[in-house]
């Protein structure tokens, strides 16, 4: 039997669909005011449902909605560690993790980069961890590519597998909200090392001459193909921004903006804003670029495109763009929308515009 700890950050990921770009500090209250729905319950249940060797685990869990509730639901025996305050905070995560660390062989946490940071503060390299992705920002390479992949990592750990130190990165949320992406390396966590199940950390955007020329070529291609009957939703990133720059539009670098007839009709949209536009416009296309280094096109950094939005718009109306230099280091593209059903509709090969009249067909995996 393996002794495994479980800590769920119940507010992680709530800022995503409402366009808040994170729930660190008090931002989750704002997310609640904006009617944001909790993300972690579904992610935690999905994760637990895929663990094959769950009978071989003795669980130590954080109380209530930080873990206990989910294990109780599936009738698994567990021991509760510590207590939590009414308004759970980073301090609860750290306190419980510190208390748990001596009792366990492996710690599972459900959350985003902020949670990873708290776990790092409390656990460091003392015990291995499995990170179930459920945040808004997930740029750290400690995360599994999906809850299902995280479950496979737990199973591998039980059978015995190598460990590797992976990076805990965090993004300055205030800078992020102000259109600046600034990542800090906080430290390392030990994770079961199965490369295909782990996401890579975000790579910085390239600014060399060749990449800039490619971005310009992509922008020219997309603009030439743009149809005045269609509403375009441009996702985050410098590659999409190259298009709006060429159209002389001021784009939110890290948000979702809408363009119709070459004019901005929506800025820094959240899910609600996008859904309103979907009611108004008949034909809609999403223009997105994969995250350099890990290849996610949905589910990381652009949570405003919820699985409901993606389902309504459809795979055929998704335009993926990316320079060859970005794609070179990616074996495939990835999706983790929060709905396995939507993820599956996106699976298979998709075309990526890589330059002016240049495309690459590349596999999407989930």
């Amino acid at each position: 039997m393996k002794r495994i700890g479980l800590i769920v950050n119940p507010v992680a990921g709530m800022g995503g669909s409402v366009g808040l770009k994170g729930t660190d500090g008090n931002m989750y209250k704002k997310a609640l005011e904006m009617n944001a729905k909790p993300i972690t319950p579904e992610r935690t249940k999905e994760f637990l449902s895929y663990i094959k060797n769950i009978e071989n685990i003795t669980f130590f869990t954080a109380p209530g909605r930080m873990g206990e509730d989910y294990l109780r639901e599936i009738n698994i025996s567990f021991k509760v560690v510590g207590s939590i305050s009414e308004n759970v905070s980073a301090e609860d995560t750290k306190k419980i993790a510190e208390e748990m660390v001596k009792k366990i062989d492996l710690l599972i946490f459900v959350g985003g980069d902020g949670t990873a940071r708290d776990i790092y503060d409390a656990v460091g390299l003392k015990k291995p961890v499995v990170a179930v992705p459920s945040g808004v920002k997930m740029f750290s390479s400690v995360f599994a590519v999906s809850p299902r992949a995280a479950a496979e990592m737990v199973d591998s750990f039980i059978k015995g597998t190598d460990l590797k130190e992976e990076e805990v990165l965090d993004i300055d949320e205030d800078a992020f909200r102000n259109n600046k992406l600034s990542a800090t390396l906080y430290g390392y966590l030990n994770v079961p090392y199965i490369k295909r199940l782990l996401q890579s950390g975000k790579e910085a955007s390239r600014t060399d001459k060749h990449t800039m020329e490619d971005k310009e070529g992509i922008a020219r291609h997309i603009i030439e193909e743009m149809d005045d009957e269609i509403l375009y939703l441009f996702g985050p990133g410098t590659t999409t921004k190259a298009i709006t720059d060429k159209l002389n539009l001021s784009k939110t670098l890290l948000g979702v903006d809408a363009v119709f007839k070459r004019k901005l009709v929506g800025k820094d949209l959240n899910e609600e804003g996008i859904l309103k536009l979907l009611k108004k416009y008949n034909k809609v296309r999403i223009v997105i670029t994969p995250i350099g280094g890990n290849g996610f096109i949905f589910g990381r950094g652009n949570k405003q495109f919820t699985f409901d939005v993606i389902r309504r718009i459809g795979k055929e109306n998704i335009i993926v763009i990316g320079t060859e230099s970005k794609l070179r280091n990616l074996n495939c593209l990835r999706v983790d929308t929060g709905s396995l059903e939507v993820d599956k509709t996106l699976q298979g090969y998709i075309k990526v515009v890589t330059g002016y009249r240049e495309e690459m067909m590349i596999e999407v995996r989930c």
Partner: protein
Amino acid sequence: MLKKYIKLNMNEMPYPPPIGIINSAKKGLSNLNRYTSQKSLEMLKNMLSDYSKAPKEHIILSSGSDLLIREMIHLFSKRRKTIVVDPTFFPITQAAKQFAPNTMKIRLSEPSFDLPISYLVDELNEQSLVVIDSPNNPTGNILLKGIEDIVETGAYLLIDEAYYEFSGIGFAEFVKDHPNLAVTRTMDKAFSLAGARIGYLIAGKTFLNDFLGFDTFLPLPGVYAAIEALKNIDYVKKNVNKIIDERKRVQKEVTKMGIGVYPSNTNFLLIKTGVPDAARELKKAGVLVFDLSNQLSSEFIRVSIGTKDENNFFLLSLEKIINQNSFK
């Protein structure tokens, strides 16, 4: 003094051709003041026709098959969408970049590096030019096991079969029945004639008019060597088998090191070393391998299968750089 390297970066055959072939090349050398006669070129074409089971009038000679690939892309990409795989033989990418106004690459992904045929076929029509190397360079994977689905779309299909003798799978004999099919081959690899640069195109009827007058006067020593080589290809079969045995041995040894090595149908192996800038590290150790940092990533290398001693030296060097890296 120049440093001497073990050269495993160009997929050459490590064994020189038999003495009879070298003597024929020498005969050509003693007549270097003369152009190669039309008669010799025709004889070479006849022999290549017999060897590849394709009609002689469909064969076009050139100094290296890369020139023919380049010419095919130059001539037939203009009003078409050119589709290539990625990664692929570098001259294919280069020619597509230079000449093709509209291109699509199909990414071959780990772990299988297989070509998604159904997705490819969905993209094709009469306005497509498809260029595929099978076996693929650098993965060593056979990408095409059949051609019907592709040629029936009306797309132009060019297959580079530089490593045909190692894979045993080729489509040259189908050219006579499919006017939109063309195949490039070379005597550089399995025939031990890299220095002679004898490449040939076996082109379907659709392409032939555009190649009228393309035949070049190949250098005499190379033509004489190629003719002699084709008279008795037993040495080719013997050397190919030797290389395949060595390839299997090297693959097994690399697997023992706990790093990625992919199944190959060629005279080279694709290895995922886990070491950044692996090609540069091996060069420091005295072994030249092909650097794939521009196509996959810098931890990947393509290594040609050399003689047993060369391969042993390579294995030793590889193990050393892997161990050094694990302490970093």
